[in-house]
C-alpha cells in the first residue's frame, strides 16, 4: 500500500488498485418517542421497559407517525444541502428475525423523504465533495443478546421502533481517511442540527460499508461487498483496509469476488462472510397499507429552514473572516458544535484587546489534552469558557507569563477556579518592572562572572543558564521577554 499525494492505493506487482467505498449510515433520530409509537427512546433502560403493544407487534396494533421525527429528517436533509421530497412513501421490508417483532421493518424504499445532496470534506490534500444519494426514515430493530444464555438468545425490544435516518452516500469515497472525515462531518452536521447525537458507543450512529476495488484508471465499478453494522470509525478503517486487500488478492489470483454481506470481526480484525442463505434477502418491499403517503408542504419545509442554525461550513468561513483563524484551526474549532460554542464564548468573554490566536492555542493545546486525558467532552470541561478567557487575557496583558499560566491552568481545574484569584492568592504575578529585573540580573551576572566571560567569548549555550538562573531566583515570575532583552544587553 502506498500513499501517493495522500492517495490510498493498493499495489501488487504491476497492478495498482484503487478502492471505491460507499457508506450507508444509520443515525438514530433524537426524539422523545419512537417513530411509530409513543414509547420512550432513552438509552440504557432496563430490558423491555420501553416497549408498547405496537412495538411488540401485538395483534391489531397499528403505526402512527411522529411529526417531530419527520421534521428531524427534513432538517438533516437541509443540512446535507439535499432535495426534500414533498411526497414520500413508507414501505414494508419483510424478513424474519427475533428482534424484528412485526416480521417486517417499516422503511422507505422507492420514494424516500430526502433525495440527492452533498457533504464537503476538508482533507489535507484539499476539499473533497462527497455525494449523498438519499436519506430515508425507518424503524430500528430490537437487540438480540447471544451471550447470556448458552442455549438461547434473549431479545430486548426497547430499541425496536426507534426512528433511524438512513443516509446513503454515493460511492465517492476512496480511502479509510476519507471515510473517517465523512463520518465525522456527518456527525458534526447532525449534532449542530440536534437531529442525532452521533454517540457511536451508545449505538446512535452505525454504518454499513460497501467496498469494491478496481484498477486505478478503470471507470467501471468492481463487485462490492457490504460490511454490516460497524460501530466505530477505527473499525471502519480497519475493515476497509482488510477487505480491500482481500479483494485485490482474489483478483490477483484470478478469482472472482462474490457479492455478499460480511461482518467485521473485531477480535481477529478481519471481515468474514455472514453465513446466511442466498435467498434471505428478498425483502418483498411494498407500500405499507397501514400508512398513507407522507406529504409535506413548502410552508412546512420553509419553517424548518428558519430553525437551521449556522452549520459547520458557514461557521468555518466566518471564523476565518471574522476571527482571522487559520483554515486548519477553523476546521478543528467547528468540527464539533460544542467546541465551536466554547470557542465563541471565550472570544466574547475576552472583551477588547483579545488575542484570539492565543485562545485558540490554549483550547486546542492544553484544554484538549486535559479533556482527552480525562475522557471528557468539552461540554464537561472542568474549566469554563469564562475563566479560560480570563486566563488568556492575563497572559496577553502581561500579568503572568505563559509558563506560569500552565501552573495556574492546573489549579483552575479544581472546581473551575477564577485565575485572577489564584494569581492573587499565590502571588503569581509576573515581575515585569525593568528596574527590578535589571537589579536581579546584575546580581546574577556578578555571582557568575566566570560564566559571563565564557559566554562573551563565544559559549552561546550559556545564555540558557542565565535565563534559568533568572527564573530560579525570581521564583519563575520574571517576565521571560524582558529577561531575554536585559540579558542580551548586559552580557
Amino acid at each position, binding site marked *: 500500500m502506498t500513499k501517493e499525494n495522500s492517495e490510498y492505493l493498493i499495489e501488487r506487482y504491476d497492478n495498482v488498485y484503487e478502492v471505491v467505498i460507499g457508506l450507508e449510515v444509520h443515525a438514530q433520530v433524537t*426524539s422523545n418517542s419512537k417513530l411509530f409509537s*409513543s414509547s420512550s427512546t432513552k438509552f440504557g433502560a432496563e430490558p423491555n*421497559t420501553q416497549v*408498547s403493544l405496537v412495538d411488540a407487534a401485538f395483534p391489531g396494533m397499528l403505526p402512527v407517525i411522529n411529526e417531530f421525527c419527520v421534521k428531524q429528517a427534513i432538517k438533516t436533509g437541509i443540512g446535507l444541502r439535499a432535495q426534500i421530497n414533498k411526497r414520500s412513501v413508507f414501505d414494508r421490508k419483510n424478513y424474519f428475525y427475533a428482534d424484528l417483532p412485526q416480521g417486517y421493518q417499516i422503511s422507505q424504499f422507492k420514494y424516500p423523504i430526502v433525495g440527492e445532496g452533498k457533504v464537503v470534506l476538508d482533507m489535507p490534500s484539499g476539499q473533497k465533495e462527497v455525494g449523498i444519494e438519499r436519506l430515508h426514515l425507518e424503524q430500528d430493530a430490537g437487540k438480540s443478546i447471544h451471550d447470556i444464555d448458552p442455549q438461547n*438468545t*434473549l431479545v430486548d425490544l426497547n430499541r425496536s421502533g426507534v426512528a433511524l435516518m438512513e443516509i446513503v452516500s454515493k460511492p465517492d469515497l476512496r480511502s479509510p481517511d476519507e471515510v473517517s472525515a465523512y463520518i465525522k462531518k456527518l456527525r458534526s452536521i447532525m449534532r449542530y442540527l440536534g437531529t442525532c447525537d452521533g454517540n457511536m458507543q451508545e449505538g446512535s450512529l452505525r454504518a454499513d460499508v460497501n467496498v469494491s476495488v478496481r484498477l486505478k484508471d478503470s471507470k467501471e465499478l468492481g463487485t462490492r461487498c457490504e460490511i454490516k453494522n460497524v460501530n466505530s470509525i477505527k473499525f471502519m478503517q480497519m475493515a476497509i483496509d482488510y477487505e480491500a486487500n482481500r479483494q485485490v488478492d482474489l483478483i490477483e489470483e484470478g478469482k472472482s469476488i462474490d457479492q455478499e454481506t460480511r461482518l467485521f470481526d473485531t477480535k481477529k480484525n478481519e471481515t468474514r462472510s*455472514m*453465513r446466511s442463505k442466498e435467498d434471505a434477502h428478498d425483502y418483498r418491499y411494498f407500500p405499507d397499507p397501514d400508512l*398513507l403517503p407522507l406529504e409535506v408542504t413548502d410552508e412546512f419545509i420553509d419553517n424548518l429552514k428558519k430553525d437551521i442554525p449556522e452549520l459547520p461550513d458557514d461557521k468555518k468561513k466566518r471564523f476565518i473572516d471574522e476571527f482571522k483563524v487559520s483554515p486548519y484551526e477553523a476546521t478543528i474549532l467547528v468540527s464539533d458544535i460544542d467546541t465551536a460554542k466554547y470557542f465563541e464564548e471565550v472570544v466574547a468573554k475576552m472583551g477588547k484587546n483579545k488575542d484570539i490566536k492565543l485562545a485558540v492555542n490554549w483550547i486546542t493545546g492544553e484544554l484538549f489534552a486535559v479533556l482527552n486525558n480525562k475522557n471528557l467532552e468539552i461540554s464537561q470541561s472542568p474549566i469554563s469558557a469564562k475563566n479560560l478567557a480570563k486566563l488568556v487575557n492575563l497572559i496577553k496583558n502581561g500579568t503572568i507569563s505563559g509558563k506560569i499560566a500552565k501552573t495556574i491552568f492546573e489549579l483552575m481545574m479544581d472546581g473551575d477556579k477564577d485565575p485572577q484569584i489564584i494569581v492573587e492568592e499565590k502571588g503569581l504575578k509576573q515581575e515585569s518592572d525593568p528596574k527590578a529585573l535589571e537589579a536581579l540580573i546584575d546580581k546574577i551576572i556578578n555571582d557568575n562572572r566566570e560564566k559571563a566571560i565564557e559566554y562573551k567569548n563565544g559559549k552561546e549555550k550559556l545564555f540558557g543558564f542565565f535565563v534559568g538562573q533568572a527564573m530560579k531566583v525570581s521564583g519563575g515570575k520574571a517576565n521571560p521577554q524582558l529577561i531575554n532583552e536585559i540579558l542580551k544587553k548586559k552580557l
Partner: protein
Amino acid sequence: MSIDLKTIKHISKLSRISVDEKKAEKLAGDLNSIFNFIEKLNELNTDNVEPLTSVAETTLKFRSDEVKNQNIREQIIKNSPEDNEDFFVVPKVVE
C-alpha cells in the same frame, strides 16, 4: 405460468413455513389453479394507470412527540411462551 416444486420450496423458506414433498406437491397444484385464475389480469392494458395504494382519501396524520406509554413490561411479556420476566427467549440462530 407454472409453479414448480422448486418455487414452492423457495417461497416456503421466505415465509418460514415448512413443507415436505407431499405438502409441496399439493401446494403446487393449488397454487397453479389459483394462478391460472389470476392470470386473467394480463388481458388488461394498464400501462398508463397509476397504482392505487389506499382508498382512504386522506393524508397521513401526525402524532406529537410525547412519551405516552410507560413501562408495561409485564403486559408485554405476559403472553410469551418462555418463562422469563425480563426478556423474550428464543432458540439460537445458527451462525
